[in-house]
């Protein structure tokens, strides 16, 4: 067992244990899946009156769709490795997030940690990652799954920052995951431009999940009933040993901009058909930015 010291974002040194590297084949895996509460993809997103964010009234909130692939993958690995392994959901979110956590428990996760603190509302990625890192170290982990990005801020950073903080390898946008026999490593395929990149990674590691990795199961009715009895441990910043939200103050959102209003159809005309087409191509590239 090697011990390495790593500077945490709050400046204090923490002792961090790396993988103890010796799994017996039957040793249960501790799988952690991250979860975020986000507005439904179909929700109508409007900027609020003050221009400081979006209007949250009347919006339906759901589990971040990419996190569903993460939960599902964790559950499938648990099932494949004989059922002794555990899936722990870790969620940083407001108190309303318990419903999303409960849904993941209904899908089959074993227990959950809910980090809930008013100081963490709209936190920057570094802050969220620092807090998550501490909670995850507390639960312990062999594999961490999370969605490739949260569909609210679309930052796609948490898994990388967490990987650095926890000093573990990472693979992003996984579309397939294969655990090795001895459970010490995995072969992960990830989607890159024009192809799939195969990555061999040691474990523990953090894997961000892309659509197509699996087909997330529904929360079955028996699962929903069982979920009522599963434990959700709630933690504030203080519970995790923080005096204040760590690692913040790195960025400031200056303004929120709505999409330019879709007006009437822009009819493109010109003397020569060729010129009209050239103009359409220019508009598609420069204005609509779709090619």
């Amino acid at each position: 067992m090697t011990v390495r010291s790593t500077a945490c974002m709050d400046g204090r040194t923490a002792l961090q244990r790396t993988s103890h590297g010796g799994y017996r084949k039957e040793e249960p895996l501790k799988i952690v899946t991250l979860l975020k509460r986000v507005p439904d993809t179909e929700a109508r997103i409007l900027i609020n009156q003050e221009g400081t964010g979006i209007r949250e009234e009347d919006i339906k909130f759901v589990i971040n769709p990419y996190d569903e692939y993460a939960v599902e993958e964790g559950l499938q690995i648990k099932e494949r490795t004989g059922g002794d392994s555990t899936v722990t959901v870790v969620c940083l979110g407001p108190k309303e997030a318990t419903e999303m956590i409960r849904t993941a428990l209904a899908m089959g996760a074993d227990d959950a940690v809910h980090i809930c603190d008013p100081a963490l509302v709209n936190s920057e990625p570094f802050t969220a990652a620092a807090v998550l890192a501490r909670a995850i170290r507390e639960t312990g982990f062999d594999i961490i799954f999370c969605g490739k990005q949260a569909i609210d801020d679309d930052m796609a950073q948490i898994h990388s920052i967490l990987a650095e903080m926890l000093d573990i390898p990472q693979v992003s946008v996984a579309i397939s995951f294969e655990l090795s026999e001895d459970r010490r490593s995995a072969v992960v395929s990830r989607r890159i431009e024009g192809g799939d990149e195969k990555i061999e990674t040691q474990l523990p590691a953090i894997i961000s999940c892309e659509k197509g990795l699996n087909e997330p199961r529904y929360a079955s009715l028996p699962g929903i009933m069982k979920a009522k009895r599963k434990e959700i441990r709630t933690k504030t910043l203080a519970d995790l040993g923080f005096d204040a939200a760590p690692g913040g103050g790195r960025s400031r959102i200056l303004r929120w901009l709505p999409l330019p209003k879709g007006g009437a159809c822009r009819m493109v005309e010109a003397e020569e058909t060729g010129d009209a087409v050239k103009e359409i191509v220019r508009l598609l590239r420069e204005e609509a930015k779709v090619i």
Partner: protein
Amino acid sequence: MQFDLTEEERMIQKTARDFARKELAPVAKENNEKGIFPAEIYAKLAGLGFLGMTMPEKYGGVDLGTFSLVLVLEEISRVCASTSVVLSVQNSLINWAILKYGSEELRDAYLPRLASGEILGAYALTEPAAGSDVAALQLSAVRTGDEYILNGTKIFISTGDKAGVVIVFGRTDPHERTHGISAFVVEPDFPGFSVGKVEDKMGLKASTTVELVFEDCRVPASHLLGTEGDGMRIALAGLDGGRIGIAAQSVGIAQAALDEAVLFARERQQFGKRIVDFQATRWKIADMATQIEAARLLMYRAAKLRDAGRPCTKEAAMAKLFASIASNRVAYDALQIHGGVGYTKEFTIERLFRDARVTEIYEGTSEIQRLVISRQVLEEYDSLFPS
């Protein structure tokens, strides 16, 4: 009485909604067009616990109340009313009857298999000469040794040709009109059981409706539900749950019809504007939405009363009456909003219109519901203002 959903109820509703959208919607049109009974859909529904919703956990059920049941039925009905009628009959009539009136052996033998989806159930009450007038049923059930011999015909039995267990109502005492009826648990491979005519219906075409023929059909005496003569009582007691289920089905159909109408009206343009911007259309939409809301609330109330163990015969009948009428009116107006294309099979509204029609007829016609309601109301007046 509070109708806000609990977290658990929201999760149950969400699973039903997601399932309906992802699994049922892609196949609903074809199944209904071609009359396909989707066995794989029922297998998946069973896997998620939908075939044993109100059954206790010890038999493999989920032990949910009627309120959760109607949440599920409405969601499924929005996409495919044929599927929801099977779910409703299974949960409210079959599972319920065996649970409440079956011996422990019968419960152990059938409930787990029903919950797991291994078998589906059918409820055989109606006969050619006995529709609304249930007590006029003539199928005879004669006790011989430790068997009953059943002779007669049942018609309009949902899922009768696909069921692994059928609850059959027959006459054990020819001299007693209502108290001479008994209920039996019958398996299709009992000697003397056969499936007769398969109806070609106007709607609910993804569900089967068949004639069942009993010719000296031998049923073990141990398969009697309750005791001899309990049949009418069982049938009547089951009606409350069944009616609330059909109310839910009606609300689902109506909601789907309104959804279709609004989405269409927002796109369709005539006379230079969207038809949704005409007052005539808006008034229709207002009336449709109000009817649906009222129907849903009546349904919720009846369900909550039933879950509280309180009498709900009047409320269940009101919910069924109002919701079934509403689903027909809403579907009618929705089709009108669609105009010509609504009359073609290309759009969903014509199926909703056809599916809605039976809701005023089965599980007690609207006329019977009015009978039940008026009787209850007058009894209340008699208590309050004795004459």
